[in-house]
């Protein structure tokens, strides 16, 4: 696994964690606020761990990778960039789709030839168990709601594009969908950014850019 693939993973986790953290203080009820914020923070922790692996290969550090790159250099999928705050159905739909996809990805990484990557995937997975439990309970609760069904349908092509093509059929089976057509996938493939990404990047890197090169 090269640095580029590590960065894709790390950027996904950082940006999704950042998006989920936008619910802190405004989640539908207090218990969920604490739980979802904690999940967001865990995702960012995973991002740091993947960045550290990439940083070793690239001769830099995790902070520089997370915050010092230009928007075009980020390799996250458009799926994680979408700003869904104030829409809980969409947020949970993405959470459930993301965790379902991430489980497939992490599972494959656990049998990586690189012991660092396999070891980290193993560690990450132990925390992801809680994320999946949380996502599953919400999916079960909302599955009958038209707003949730619509959110899943709307997000599905974007969610499928999160994974490399060879893992998409597995995801489709797990979430009970068909693999979207290439035409549908085109607008969501990794390598491009959604309109929501630039404002996210501006805010996410604002403090760090305010005093370039500072030691925090």
């Amino acid at each position, binding site marked *: 696994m090269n640095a580029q693939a590590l960065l894709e993973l790390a950027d996904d986790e950082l940006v999704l964690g950042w998006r989920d953290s936008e619910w802190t203080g405004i989640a539908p009820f207090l*218990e969920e606020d604490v739980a979802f914020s904690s999940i967001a923070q865990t995702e960012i922790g995973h991002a740091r761990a993947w960045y550290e692996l990439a940083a070793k290969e690239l001769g830099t550090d995790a902070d520089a990778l997370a915050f010092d790159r230009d928007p075009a250099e980020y390799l996250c999928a458009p799926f994680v960039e979408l700003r869904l705050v104030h829409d809980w159905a969409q947020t949970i739909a993405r959470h459930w789709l993301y965790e379902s996809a991430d489980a497939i990805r992490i599972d494959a990484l656990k049998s990586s030839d690189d012991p660092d990557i396999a070891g980290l995937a193993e560690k990450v997975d132990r925390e992801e168990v809680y994320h999946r439990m949380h996502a599953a309970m919400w999916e*079960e*609760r909302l599955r009958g709601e038209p707003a949730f069904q619509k959110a899943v349908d709307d997000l599905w092509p974007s969610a499928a594009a999160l994974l490399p093509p060879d893992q998409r059929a597995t995801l489709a089976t797990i979430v009970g969908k068909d693999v979207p057509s290439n035409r549908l996938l085109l607008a969501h493939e990794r390598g491009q950014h959604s309109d929501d990404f630039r404002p996210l990047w501006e805010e996410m890197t604002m403090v760090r850019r305010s005093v370039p090169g500072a030691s925090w």
Partner: protein
Amino acid sequence: MNFPRRLGPSGAGRSRASPGGSRAGQGTGMIWEVFRQEREGQPFQHGGSLEAPNLVFAEAYAREFYGRRDESFALWIVPREAVKEVREPYVAEVFDRDYRRVDGYSLKVKLKEARERAGTSRAG
């Protein structure tokens, strides 16, 4: 989410529909009491309470708040309604029967008190 507290002025007199006070009854459901066992074999102690619509959510939140950072070996998650609070109506013991009291078994506290009395409390 609530901090540990007593169940209410009088268990019998309180409505079961709103056991948790002001935040309950807003649609998220029931209050669950969480007990934690810090290490294997130790007694369970009350950790706090939380609000959740069903046991599945209660379990996820309880794990999130009390379990997943290795701070507990095991949890008990109990609907507050299942807890029967009893308070003795008698004002005080009439006869001196100290020997029957069971509050002397907390060795940790007793030791701490004894050490303090002796002025030999352990450093740190």
